[in-house]
């Protein structure tokens, strides 16, 4: 038996376990790329519009930090600037989670022991996971190239852009292979890999902010920190702006080096062990923890803190960018129209701010879904069974979770409004006033988030086994209706399906009470339905 015996069988097992996730990933990335490319091309149809976009992007530090260095005025370059960072982050996280799931998580749950005792070589589980994840990245990139070319972009640039995205996935696969050896827990492994991704984002942002602008003002040459970042490499490929193909070798080199390191680490450690010993924790519970509410807070606080930091940074940036935005729309009527469609009002700056708050509300919807689906996760794990066998009623248990998610959404919305207002106010000179005004405007989105909570709760009560997939699908549909509905000119009846459609787009329009009351009523009905269904069904089911 060699160290790789059984790799093929294990790879088939990985494929079998992940067939749905992989299919969504491999098909979803190109579809998303196609949709985004189409809508961006529509917003910047002519050279003049793109010239304006490129000069603004090159001169705006916020745009450089979040969108990367702009590489000229080709439609493709604009598409890359608008979509690359998002796609790259998605692919980075998908790759990381997939590797951890099939390596460290198997060891953690003891599945690996079962497998390890059969005819399977020492390196086979890791190799099988890496093969599948790399193959998924390659397949997704190939289809993305087809999708971009299909959307009408030049072929060479499409290949380079897709390669850039795929390269990020490949690099992160390598990173995760190492972190899976280092940490004893799958959560720890994901957190470490996530930290590496975060660091790459920061390095890239720093390098792009510090970079030089070209003489014509439509290109940015990043500074050295971007070259230290796997996320930055994708930009350095310069798709649609004079491709540098050799840069695509960097992620492959990183993968090979990381895999060699991972094998070396795997050789030196025991099954189930890691390099970082887990921390010791409290031997007894603090008094505040000893209730469903205390537990909910304990389970959510980490995620909530992460969200708060992310939202605060984005909020201030978006607020500061509002002023730069003023400059940009003067040069680009089409972009102005798009913003206007999203924000739905007359004053463009207010429309921009309203659109940003709307985006925040959508994003915070993901927090609500994730927070509430914990109950389902607990049910699937079996923890819920133990909890409900105590003297806590089902209604109280579920109610506490819903309340916690709603409070979290309230806090994050408020924070989003406050920080956006603060950033905008810092530029215009009235930070406090703008913070209060936008904080209030943001909170008007809460009823839409309560509807999201209601949808998840109803699904959890009525269709527990499908609730995870259906909840995320619902949120995705809301997102697509909100972001692309206007661009795709969908009928109003379709747009009305999303609770976000009904939120008055303050500050672009005046607040209205009726829609908020209706949304809250719908949310209450959904919550009551979910709770009643939960009370009457089997646990676990």
């Amino acid at each position, binding site marked *: 038996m060699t160290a790789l015996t059984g790799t093929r069988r294990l790879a088939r097992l990985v494929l079998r376990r992940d067939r749905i996730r992989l299919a969504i990933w491999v098909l979803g990335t190109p579809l998303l790329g196609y949709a985004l490319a189409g809508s961006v091309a529509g917003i910047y149809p002519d050279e003049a519009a793109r010239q304006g976009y490129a000069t603004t992007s090159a001169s705006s530090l916020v745009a450089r930090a979040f969108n990367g260095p702009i590489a000229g005025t080709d439609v493709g370059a604009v598409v890359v600037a608008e979509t690359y960072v998002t796609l790259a982050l998605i692919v980075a996280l998908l790759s990381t989670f997939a590797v951890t799931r099939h390596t460290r998580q198997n060891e953690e749950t003891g599945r690996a022991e079962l497998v390890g005792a059969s005819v399977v070589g020492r390196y086979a589980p890791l190799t099988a996971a890496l093969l599948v994840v790399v193959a998924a990245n390659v397949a997704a990139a190939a289809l993305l190239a087809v999708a971009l070319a299909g959307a009408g972009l030049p072929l060479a640039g499409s290949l380079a852009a897709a390669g850039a995205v795929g390269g990020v996935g490949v690099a992160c696969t390598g990173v995760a292979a190492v972190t899976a050896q280092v940490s004893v827990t799958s959560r720890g492994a994901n957190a470490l890999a996530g930290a590496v991704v975060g660091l790459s984002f920061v390095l890239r942002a720093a390098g792009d902010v510090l970079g030089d602008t070209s003489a014509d003002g439509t290109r940015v040459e990043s500074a050295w920190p971007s070259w230290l970042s796997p996320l930055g490499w994708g930009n350095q490929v310069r798709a649609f702006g004079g491709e540098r193909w050799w840069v695509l070798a960097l992620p492959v080199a990183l993968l090979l080096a990381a895999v060699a390191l991972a094998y070396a680490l795997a050789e030196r450690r025991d099954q189930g062990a890691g390099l970082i010993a887990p921390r010791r924790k409290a031997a*007894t519970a603090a008094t505040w923890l000893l209730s469903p509410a205390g537990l909910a807070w304990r389970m959510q606080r980490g995620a909530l803190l992460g969200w708060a930091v992310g939202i605060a940074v984005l909020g201030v940036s978006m607020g500061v960018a509002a002023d730069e935005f003023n400059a940009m729309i003067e040069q680009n009527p089409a972009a102005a129209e798009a913003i206007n469609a999203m924000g739905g009002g007359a004053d463009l700056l207010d429309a921009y701010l309203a659109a940003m708050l709307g985006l925040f509300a959508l994003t915070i919807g993901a927090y609500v879904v994730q927070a509430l689906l914990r109950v389902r996760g607990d049910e699937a794990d*079996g923890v819920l069974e*133990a909890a409900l*066998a105590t003297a806590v009623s089902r209604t109280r248990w579920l109610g506490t979770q819903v309340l916690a998610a709603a409070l979290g959404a309230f806090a994050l919305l408020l924070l989003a409004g406050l920080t956006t207002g603060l950033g905008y106010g810092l530029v215009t000179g009235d930070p406090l006033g703008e913070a209060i005004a936008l904080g209030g405007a943001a909170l008007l989105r809460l009823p839409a988030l309560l509807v999201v909570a209601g949808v998840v709760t109803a699904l959890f009560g009525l269709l527990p086994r499908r609730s995870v997939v259906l909840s995320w699908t619902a949120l995705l549909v809301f997102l697509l209706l909100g972001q692309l509905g206007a661009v795709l000119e969908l009928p109003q009846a379709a747009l009305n399906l999303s609770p976000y459609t009904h939120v008055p787009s303050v500050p672009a329009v005046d607040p209205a009470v009726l829609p908020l009351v209706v949304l809250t009523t719908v949310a209450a009905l959904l919550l009551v339905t979910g709770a009643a269904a939960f009370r009457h069904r089997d646990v676990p089911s």
Partner: protein
Amino acid sequence: MPVISIDNLVKTFGRIRALDGLDLRVEAGEVHGFLGPNGSGKSTTIRILLGLLRRDSGEARVLGADPWRDAVRLHRRLAYVPGDVSLWPNLSGGEAIDLLGELRGGLDRRRRDELLQRFDLDPTRGCRTYSKGNRQKVAIVAAFSSNVELYVLDEPTSGLDPLMEAVFQDEVRRIKQAGATVLLSSHVLAEVEALCDRLSIIREGRTVESGSLTELRHLTRTTVIVETARPVTGLDALPGVHDVHEVDGRTHLEVEPAHLDELLGQLVRFGVRALTSTPPTLEQLFLRHYGDEHVSADDPAPARAQRAGAR
């Protein structure tokens, strides 16, 4: 009034009939063994008793109440150890014990610390890093530190090593002494034999046997090995005697307890020199219902009858 009484309980999951007319009676103060092979419906029964699953038909009462409607009130009076314990991954073992105990309505701190020591469990480790055995210990400690009337334990010792198994048995005896009732689902027969006053054996969602170990033994055969001065004859004609064969000059046979007397009457005529009689072990009882050879007292298996007749 029995602490648990179940009559004709039926539970289906889609097309799977997990419980098919199950009966169970657990009296106050007893340790009741609940035996059955994997998939026979033990966990399903227990979840119905906890009001987690809803029964399709039949009656179930726990401490005089309906477990589905009065779940919360009942849960104050009972403690549960699930068959496959999973815990909140980011809590420590100690925190999980405190939380489960408190949600149940409070726990005895002194007992908790004592149990942690006895079960050799490190409460400062994250639940995520516990092995199956250690997670099981967390649930056992949390249950045994509560002062309740009824303990429902679903295969609580799967994953414990023999040393811990002994500690567990001690603790079960202790709560029994304190007057509590225990429903112990298990397929560790030695454990059931050591702890249980009465037991119920289930198979494919039905109760096939129920009673004290002594009672159950009376339902099945005793193994007799006898050495006589002259070769024994005429045994095949006796009622209740089975599987007669000779090994090294000794006669081996199985006899139904009710016919022991007639057997002895026949044997003494051949000059008994030595005789051992062994009551059935729990394992034999168990295998009688699940083993390959399905032998019931009034329906001797053809294979055995043939072997006996061939001599």
